[in-house]
């Protein structure tokens, strides 16, 4: 089976299942809104301050929400030993990981695009001034979260401490890409156009995605087949 068609098959299956039950999606959205609300109480910012903290605040929320989504991703395969069936099927391990990563990516983006308008309203910010570039940042940084998170979600799926392990393993690895995302988002939400500095950060984001996607592809068999 072709790597990409296999990945597409898995991604569509995962999305269909999640959009049908909305278990993880509801939890992630509810959690994100609660966080945004709490932060607005905690900092009580005016618009200028809000623009400054926007990047950090949003990416903290998105990363935590991402963990909720990622935890479900492989847990979904556990009842009825579905993961076993997938591993025994002719779908390559790479397709399985990338398909799941793609589904998690899409779900995370849904959460992000639901949260951004709410954030704009809560904090009285017009965040759309650099929306195209902001979308690129969201896409790139979310892919990093999705791909690294999927690998470690797959690794830890059979552990008793699964839910606890994922953040402990994934957050430190994600730090560089989150820094880039925080910085870029803060500037872009502030309406600042891209400059040389910001482009360097964007390159870092791209590099991070490429490196960890390649590592995932290289180690996919080792991740899934023990």
């Amino acid at each position, binding site marked *: *089976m072709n790597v990409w068609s*296999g990945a597409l*098959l898995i991604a569509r*299956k995962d999305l*269909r*299942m999640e959009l*049908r*039950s909305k278990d993880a999606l509801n939890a992630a959205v509810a959690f994100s809104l609660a966080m945004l609300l709490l932060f607005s109480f905690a900092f009580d910012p005016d618009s200028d301050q809000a623009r400054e903290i926007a990047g950090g605040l949003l990416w903290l929320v998105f990363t935590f929400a991402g963990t909720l989504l990622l935890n479900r991703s492989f847990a*979904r395969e556990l*009842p*009825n*030993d*579905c993961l*076993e*069936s*997938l*591993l*025994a*099927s*002719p*779908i*390559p391990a790479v397709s399985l990981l990338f398909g799941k990563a793609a589904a998690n990516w899409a779900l995370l983006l849904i959460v992000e695009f639901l949260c951004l308008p709410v954030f704009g309203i809560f904090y009285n910010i017009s965040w759309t001034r650099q929306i195209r570039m902001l979308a690129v940042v969201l896409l790139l940084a979310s892919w990093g979260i999705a791909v690294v998170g999927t690998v470690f979600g797959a690794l830890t799926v059979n552990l008793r401490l699964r839910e606890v392990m994922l953040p402990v393993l994934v957050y430190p690895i994600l730090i560089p890409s989150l820094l880039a995302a925080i910085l870029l988002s803060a500037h872009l939400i502030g309406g600042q156009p891209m400059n040389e500095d910001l482009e360097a950060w964007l390159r870092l984001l791209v590099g991070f995605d490429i490196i960890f996607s390649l590592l995932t592809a290289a180690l996919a*068999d080792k991740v899934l*087949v*023990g």
Partner: protein
Amino acid sequence: MSAVEACGLTRFFGVYAALRNVSFRVPPGQCVALLGRNGAGKTTLLRLVAGIHSPSEGTLAVFGGDPAKPATRKAIGFLGHGSGLYDELSAEENLMLAAKVYELPDPAAATRRWLERVELDRLARSRPGEFSRGMRQRLALARVLLAQPKLLLLDEPLTALDDRASRMVRDLLEEAHAAGTTLLMSTHHLSEGMEIATHILLLDRGRVAYSGERTAAMLANPAGVYELSGDAA
């Protein structure tokens, strides 16, 4: 070419050897009952052949290919303890998914045909979570059989089924066997398993205790097979 050829298979879980130096050969077309007590290594062996685990030592070939390779797994159907069905998807969607995973030319037609074969066509849109154990097992078997695998691996396919469901599952298996599919199935149901089987592979604490034809004497006294491992039933 053998359907399954195992040579010196060993599989460790930690320091515990679930399988030790297991060698056997299954020519195409056989129906092998994989017997042994709990912990004998039956499930581990099936998972190795299915490519879910990799052997710690030894080599394994399925129709000459390595089950770790997706192309080899295309010829293998695997039904483990769990049904492998998604409760969030309907019966129809579950079969469609399998048909696409195995790249059948016409997934929709295969799905329809197999829903009819296992008499679940009227429940196509229901979810397997709502099914009885027997119906689920039928659907699970349809999921595996629809790709027409050359090698069928089954882990306790007859467990916890009532008479009618068990009869139906056995019919399906016998039909597949008659069509030339090689079967390797573990079972605790000695008498039922032996009725279908042409050969026996008996495991005892991770080792092959007996491998050979299923004789008429075994059919008459199924429990006697354990004596082959030097262990009274």
